[in-house]
């Protein structure tokens, strides 16, 4: 993670933590009706309700670390981020944040609808702690990244939600924050922009920016964050490696399947070989088809699927997902859909694996999950260890010494991009 070419402090676990929360709790008074008369009544009348949105959260994030925050709606993710942004104050406990904070909460940094893009960039830069000249120096970069073009002098109230969002993200990442707080940014914008966002966040990661990343898009969390916190009812339910956090989350969603009804049901799943027989013991690289039928009990606009292959110990071997954000088709209540995933298990050291899928809405909120789908066993590729097949070749003084009896892969998967005939020559 060290990058001496940048001015930022590189990741250094011994330095003072960038973020430290000490038994932080946040209480809201939920009041259904608020009027002068009622608030003058002693004890506020009967319709005041306490709500602990965050309870006793201890958290330490080292400078330069990237931490994901996942959890169900209402688990306290946004409340936590608001406190870290300094927008809201804890009811109990204390928190400390070192460095300039760039919050990117919901859509945009916070824009004045009547102001033009240009004016909003300036005001936002000031709000994020830059001086006027610093904003001017970064202005072109911000506008270019957002891809605003001629709209830069148009009031932002005329912007599309995508432009709005792009500008917000662009400002936040271009002010060189020490701490970037990101809440569900990948929910909006087209795929190209989402990729640019992810890449930009990786750049910031490399240059030592501390990032907290809240998202329902679990694959994005997995991509960006080595460590993830699972929040449940305002408490930290898990804090550790992202894979385990996601596994915990799935168990959580599954455990109260009765109470949690998102209106989508997975009816049937199977994993078949090309000849239609059920997959059990399969070969490396053998084409397999996973299929699943889904019923929608309520209208779902633009559903998506997360597909994962998970090892016996819960480690993620592979994941792929559908395009985020597009209303590509509107399903009505009662409709059924069939999902087919064609894949080739090229799983290095082999072993037992199973399929794990989620059905999501357009914005990747998980609506139904089947974490323990059909299982299969793949024998190890000769000489290969670990879940991946990187097709490594090892040469000593120019002499290829790779133990490449893996070549039997071609026998079953001729279309796999492996050299034909005598393979080693092409790969030194």
């Amino acid at each position, binding site marked *: 993670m060290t990058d001496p070419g940048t001015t930022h402090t590189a990741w250094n676990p011994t330095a003072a933590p960038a973020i430290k929360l000490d038994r932080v709790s946040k209480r809201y008074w939920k009041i259904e009706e608020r009027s002068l008369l009622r608030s003058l009544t002693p004890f506020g009348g009967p319709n005041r309700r306490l709500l602990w949105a965050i309870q006793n959260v201890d958290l330490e994030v080292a400078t330069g670390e990237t931490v994901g925050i996942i959890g169900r709606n209402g688990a306290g993710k946004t409340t936590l981020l608001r406190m870290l942004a300094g*927008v809201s*104050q804890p009811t109990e406990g204390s928190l*400390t944040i070192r460095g300039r904070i760039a919050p990117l909460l919901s859509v945009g940094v916070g824009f004045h609808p009547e102001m033009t893009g240009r004016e909003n960039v300036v005001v936002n830069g000031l709000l994020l702690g830059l001086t006027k000249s610093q904003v001017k120096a970064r202005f072109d970069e911000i506008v270019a990244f957002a891809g605003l073009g001629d709209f830069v002098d148009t009031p932002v109230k005329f912007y599309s939600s995508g432009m709005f969002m792009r500008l917000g993200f662009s400002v936040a990442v271009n002010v060189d924050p*020490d701490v970037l707080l990101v809440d569900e940014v990948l929910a909006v914008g087209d795929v190209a922009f989402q990729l640019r966002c992810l890449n930009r966040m990786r750049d910031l990661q490399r240059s030592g920016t501390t990032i907290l990343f809240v998202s329902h898009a679990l694959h994005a969390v997995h991509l960006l964050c080595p460590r993830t916190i699972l929040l449940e009812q305002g408490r930290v339910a898990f804090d550790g490696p992202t894979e385990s956090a996601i596994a915990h989350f799935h168990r959580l969603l599954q455990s109260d399947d009765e109470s949690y009804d998102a209106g989508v049901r997975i009816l049937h799943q199977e994993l078949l070989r090309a000849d239609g027989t059920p997959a059990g013991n399969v070969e490396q690289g053998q084409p397999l088809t996973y299929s699943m039928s889904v019923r929608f009990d309520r209208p779902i606009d633009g559903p998506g699927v997360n597909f994962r292959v998970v090892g016996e110990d819960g480690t993620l071997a592979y994941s792929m997902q559908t395009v985020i954000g597009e209303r590509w088709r509107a399903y009505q209540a009662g409709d059924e859909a069939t999902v087919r995933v064609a894949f080739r298990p090229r799983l290095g050291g082999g072993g037992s694996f199973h399929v794990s899928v989620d059905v999501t809405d357009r914005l990747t909120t998980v609506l139904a999950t089947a974490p323990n789908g059909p299982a299969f066993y793949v024998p190890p590729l000769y000489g290969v260890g670990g879940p991946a097949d990187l097709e490594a070749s090892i040469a000593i003084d120019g002499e290829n010494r790779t133990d490449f009896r893996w070549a039997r892969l071609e026998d079953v998967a001729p279309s796999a991009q492996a050299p034909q005939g005598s393979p080693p020559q092409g790969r030194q």
Partner: protein
Amino acid sequence: MRSDASAADPTPVLRLDHRPATLGNWLGGLWRFRGVLIALARKDFQVRYKRATLGVLWSVALPLLQSIVLVFIFSRVGGFGSGHSFSYAGFVLAGMVPWVFVSTSIIASTTSIVDASGLTDKVWFPRAILALVPPCANLLLLATATAILLVELPLVGVTPNVRLLLLVPAAALAVLFASSVGLVLAALYVYFRDLKFMVAAVILVWLYVTPIVYPASALGSAGRWLDLNPLTGIVGLFQTAAVGAPGPSARAVVVSLGSTAVLMVAAAAIHRRYDRLFVDLL
């Protein structure tokens, strides 16, 4: 609650717990974000008159029309117009300048924090900035109205003289008063949404219990009760400066100064405590 940066370490450090901000931190925050205040005030002003050809002139023309109507009614029907040692028309025109500034600023400030919820729930800056935007944006309006007043005075037969310098402290007091009322009301409005209508009602009555369209002396001995109205002193200073009307009583000026000071202290206390809690109710 502390948020500061020491000189040795340029990294800003934000510390938050349940305690209110210290006075120094709160004021420091206001100073640090003054650029935001200026930018928002400028925009507020531009947006208001954006599409109107005559622009800011409207903001002065309407109160002017109102003054003329009031002068006409109160001098012809109410009989206030005659028997003064000063120009009655000039008296009303001068009184309307601080009145329009204070009343429009207060009305806009009251809803300012709630109206900006799209900004406040995403990034922190002292919320007091929002309540200060309307009085700041109205500064130009106050200056324009004063300039027009100076043009009108000769037209109603008043010879300008050195008394006019009194307009400067009078205007300063009007700005401070409107700002402190706005800061308090903006905070209260987050919690009591009835306040908007109560403010509108009070403003409606306030015009007539302030000696703007009539001199306090016209009420006889009852006139001294008007001294309890903090606007009496402010408006009186404007009228004295413009047309040489008998000055507001010392008591009225003390009430104006005192209420401004009390409201300032209250505003600081409320905002230090609730600055980062407003957002929970937006």
